[in-house]
């Protein structure tokens, strides 16, 4: 006759964000290493040379760290005031930095003392960089000017004073040694050509520009300022391609992944967002402990380094498959493949009479107990830690099945202190989960009914019941607030045509609310 039908475990829609290729990629980093600096970390720059050391500019120092070291391999401490924008030259030999003292210093990476000092700016220099031909230095200063310097002679080659506010960021073109781009607090991004007297292109960002970044192809330019990240098409004469508003505080830094496929932006709202450069949609999001001022990705995305306002440098290294093997140690011995195919790879000949063994349906432990009508044991088997913690939906499905059979009360009754406390802890963990709430509220009611008499005999159980009550009360408040919000939303939606979402949402919340308030009354009555 028909065989036993196993308990159906309903598949719930997955809550939270969907797992995509991007989330898998960006999650594949180890827990961050935290390094404490002396002040806010304003700039991180990777050396283009092989060990890929990185320079971290914070307070009056510039530290150079090795890829896996937590101690600086080198530090430049000769600044009398805050240093800014420590940047490597493309050959990795020289490092340039601006400072609050209106000076620009050029260091040899292997040396200690500054090779050159460039004087001429009247106010703090926040942005310095090398030009693509390696012989010039660009700088932008709070005196509204940006200048081009000759490295060997320390002479100022040209000066542009078109900006009307602090120049805080900029980037040289990697393809053309004469072209560089600056962003300023006067809301504009300007493109300069050293062969011309004036700027060749001006783009209005609309907010004080905090950071600019060129795409590897240099056809597109990204600027960040205020809450916006804007992408400009340079070849169309500086037309805005897309304007992204995904942060809720000022975006401070930008960075491109090694392949050029993803764009990262860090913000004072403590988030780093990853955008796809084809769709300009946010594909991933990192959370940090403090506001982010600077961010950098190592070549090949081997590590993500973020500098924050509280002086903490967070370094995340990528997980490598080899690492896991090291950590895991000895792998578990499994039966060999031939054990499973034993006797099954024999092909019957033409005249053979085949006697097949009846295939045995494998039932889970709870199904075996349910088949025997052992309701308490079935419930016990799904209240084991690995089931109730990892797959609460299985536990709930079995409870639902017991309820359908009308034997839930029998299964819940007759538990000792330990069993009851496991049951209560499961309830506390899951009772407010909207997927499980309807049935678990019934369970909670039944538990209170059954064990009303023993309240006061065990401190552990009493504590848990109080906790449950607290939880339920909190949930009621929460639902009440939601209802208020919904009421407000309803008035907003009333004018719009799309009423359906609000109506559906409203109904769901109403029903849950109703159940929960009923339970709360019960608890108050009992305890």
């Amino acid at each position, binding site marked *: *006759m028909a065989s*036993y*039908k196993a308990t*159906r475990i309903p598949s719930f829609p997955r809550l939270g964000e969907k797992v995509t290729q991007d989330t898998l990629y960006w999650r594949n980093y180890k827990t961050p290493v935290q390094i404490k600096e002396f002040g806010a970390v304003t700039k991180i720059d990777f050396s283009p040379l092989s060990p890929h050391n990185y320079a971290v500019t914070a307070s009056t120092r510039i530290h150079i760290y090795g890829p896996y070291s937590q101690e600086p391999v080198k530090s430049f401490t000769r600044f009398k005031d805050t240093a800014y924008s420590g940047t490597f030259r493309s050959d990795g030999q020289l490092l340039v930095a601006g400072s609050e003292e209106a000076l620009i210093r050029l260091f040899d990476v292997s040396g200690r003392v500054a090779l050159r000092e460039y004087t001429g700016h009247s106010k703090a220099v926040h942005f310095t960089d090398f030009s693509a031909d390696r012989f010039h230095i660009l700088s932008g200063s709070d005196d509204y000017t940006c200048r081009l310097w000759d490295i060997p002679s320390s002479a100022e080659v040209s000066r542009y004073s078109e900006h009307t506010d602090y120049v805080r960021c900029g980037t040289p073109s990697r393809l053309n040694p004469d072209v560089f781009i600056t962003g300023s607090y006067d809301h504009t991004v300007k493109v300069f050509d050293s062969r011309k007297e004036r700027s060749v292109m001006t783009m209005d960002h609309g907010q004080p520009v905090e950071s600019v970044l060129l795409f590897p192809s240099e056809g597109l330019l990204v600027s960040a300022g205020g809450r916006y990240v804007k992408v400009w098409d340079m070849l169309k004469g500086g037309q805005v391609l897309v304007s992204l508003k995904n942060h809720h505080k000022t975006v401070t830094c930008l960075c491109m992944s090694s392949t050029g496929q993803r764009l990262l932006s860090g913000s004072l709202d403590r988030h780093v967002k990853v955008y796809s450069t084809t769709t300009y949609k946010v594909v991933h999001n990192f959370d940090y402990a403090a506001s982010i001022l600077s961010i950098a990705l190592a070549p090949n995305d081997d590590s993500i380094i973020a500098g924050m306002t509280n002086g903490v440098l967070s370094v995340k290294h990528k997980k490598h498959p080899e690492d896991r093997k090291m950590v895991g140690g000895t792998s578990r011995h499994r039966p060999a493949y031939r054990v499973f195919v034993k006797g099954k790879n024999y092909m019957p000949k033409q005249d053979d009479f085949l006697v097949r063994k009846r295939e045995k349906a494998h039932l889970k432990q709870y199904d075996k107990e*349910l088949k025997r009508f052992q309701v308490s044991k079935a419930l016990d088997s799904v209240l084991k830690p690995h089931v109730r913690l990892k797959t609460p939906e299985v536990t709930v499905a079995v409870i639902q099945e017991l309820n359908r*059979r*009308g034997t839930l009360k029998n299964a819940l009754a007759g538990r000792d202190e330990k069993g009851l406390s496991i049951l209560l802890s499961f309830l506390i963990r899951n009772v407010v989960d909207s997927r499980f709430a309807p049935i678990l509220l019934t369970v909670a009611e039944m538990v209170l009914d059954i064990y009303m008499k023993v309240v006061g005999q065990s401190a552990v159980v009493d504590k848990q019941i109080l906790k449950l009550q607290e939880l339920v009360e909190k949930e009621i408040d929460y639902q009440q607030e939601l209802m208020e919000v919904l009421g407000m939303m309803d008035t907003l939606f009333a004018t719009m045509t799309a009423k359906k979402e609000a*109506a559906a949402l409203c*109904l769901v919340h109403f*029903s849950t609310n109703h159940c929960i308030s009923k339970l709360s009354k019960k608890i108050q009555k009992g305890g």
Partner: protein
Amino acid sequence: MYRWQSGLWRLIDPGPGWIFASLIHLFVQFLLCASGDAVHVYSTSTEERVHVLQGHVDLVTGLRLNSSNHLQVYSCSLDGTVKLWDFTDGILIKTYIVGHKIFSLYVSKFHEGTVFIILPMESKAFQLVALHLPKTTGPEVEARDILSVLRDVSPIPKATSFGRGGEFVASASGLQLSVYFFRKQKTYRFSLKANDKKGARNRFTCVASHPNDDCIATGHEDGKIRLWRNFSQKKEYTYSTEHWHHSAVNALHFTPEGTELLSGGVESVLVLWRYGAGSKKDFVPRLGSAIEHISVSPDGSLYCTSHKDNKIVVMKSSRDISAIIQGLVKGVTDLLIDPRTKALVCNGKPGHLQFFSLRHDKQLYNLDIVQQEYIHEAGLHQCEVTKAAIDAQGSWLATVEERQENPEELDIILKLWAYDESTQSFHLNTSISMAHEGQISAMCFSGDAEATMLVTTGRDGHFKAWLLADHPDAQGEGASWSCDYVGSYHRREPTRCCFSADGSLLAVGFGEVVTVWSPSTWELLVTFSQPPGDIRDLCFGRLSCSKYLLGTTTKNLLCCWNLLTCSLEWSSTVDVILLQPDPLSENMAAFSRASGSTDLFVFKPSEPRPLFSQKAVCSGTVRRAVFAPREEVLEGCDESTQWLSCSRLYFLTEHMELMTFSTKSEEDQIIASSKQLVIDDSVAVTPFYLLLGKHRKSQRETQDSVSSHTAARIQLPQGSPAIRELLHTPAHVLPSASFLCNMFVNSLLISKCREEEMGSEEEEEAEEQESEGEMEASVSAQGPAVQGFQTEPTPQLSKAQERELRKLQKADFSWLSSLLDS
């Protein structure tokens, strides 16, 4: 089986669909079962019905084997007659007229020429009497020689049992067990208390006596089985109690040897207690539905249980199930027609939908909708399939299952099933729990072939549209259904919904208002209202009448709105309880209530005069109706039967009878085919049966293991009578095997290829004329003869064939003619 209605029209109920297995009697080859006013004889090996013993005019209440002749059976009925039948040939031998209502019948070896029947006494009591059967000849005999045996017995057949070959009779009624010894002519009565401190309920439900030991087994309301011994003393009787059943024991039966006691109840588990071995027992679990009756064949090799869901299960004594005779299960959902198999779809086993082939009067398969273990327990709230709908192509099935424990807790699951071509059955695609906050009151698919849409209306005041959509995010999952639109109208409760034939309009009835929506934009196009009275049924006209929308209201109004002018075209005051459109024509069938019976009107919305009307098609109301498309258009219909030409109307009455309309010519065909069936099915175990039957059985087993969802497959060719004869004829009179081989193989071919082959063979015949191969010619002549058995013989003969025939006449075919004649 046929009830004549005004000459041409009659109602038939689809024969074996109804078993009503109230009484069964099992033999090694045959299974007898009383069903209504007839006794059905089934073959235990083929599960086919062999005979229907018709003659009683009221419910058959008893069925017993004649103890002196094992090929005869007594039956009794409420019409006050006892009839003696030869069940192997299906012949009525004798009728004994008693003149009182007979509630049960028993025979015992001890008393030849006497049967025991239960008759009503005055004041609602019943008595067991011995009826002496007069030995006079003649088909009808008055039998008035009655001798009272026991007074105050229960009229239920299960509550009385003859023990030890008829030495005593035990009968239980209420809380009292009475045992009457024929030798001593003495009655002993034993009483039990109604209940005790432990909550036992001791009322007797059934009695069985051990065939050759002094032991009586009684079943009780609380599931206990008591084995009484030493009951020939008034005081020193003893009994032992066994308790396994959790609710009343419905049936008890000893095996003929007395080694085992079989019991069954609501749990639908057959329990086999070993006699004399205490509480040792075996189980046959999950028989599907509550056991009503148990029977064992006289040699003890077969057991048989009849179930509440119109099913008889035959199992061997090794607990292997050998046959299941399943009738149409009574249900409450909508009647549907599956467009692919043309099968009737309705509730089957609990939580299942059954696909019942109307053409073959046979259940095709059961589709498990609920997919939960069914707990057989009285008073448990079960998950029930309440609504079902199939789209026009038969590729999607939507079902609604409900479980309501109390008014506040309602579980509703809307499930959508996709038809899978490879496995030929439906597979679950989407399951939506709590699709509506209240019960789902109506559901329908749009007729649009490209974008199938489902609309459900709920008691929560909304109607929802569901669309099949691909979710690109969900990897590895195909398309699934999701909600597309939620609509409501002034917080009224929607009751009915209906799509127009092309799927461009949706009509939803909200109370007394009909709203018409455009499913593409979800715009409310127009509203109709004809107060007072809420909308009961809604449907759009089809084909040439597609501009009409028809609705019926609770206040006896049938309205027809014109959708082009948005006005009421006509209305009439008829209390229409059911309105059913024919999907293949413009016709509509309306059932109306009139003084205890139901009238039927068939009309076209565009014409004022009904095409057909029939007063009092059945007593009581009609629950559901459906138009089933015919396999082929019926030719030669006159004006009044024109509406039956492309589809047939089936309807389900209050008493759960399925009825249909058919024309006279059809009726004759049915009778003819049923006669043919009788000839065909007197099958014994032949070598050929062993060959093909084995095949069939293994096929069935695999079907079962694949959760019995596979659809009806092409049947293997059945043995034609010629082969059967061939295998039965003694070998020494047959021609040589090499000669017979060709013929045998030809007859095994499936008929379609046979017809093609027939043509080619005729050509061959023409060629072979010159060669004058008499033997070969005789073989090819044999081929068409076999095929012609079921089809009509062709009267026209060509000249070449006539010449052939003449040639055949010369040859000696005496052996062949003896084959065909026998």
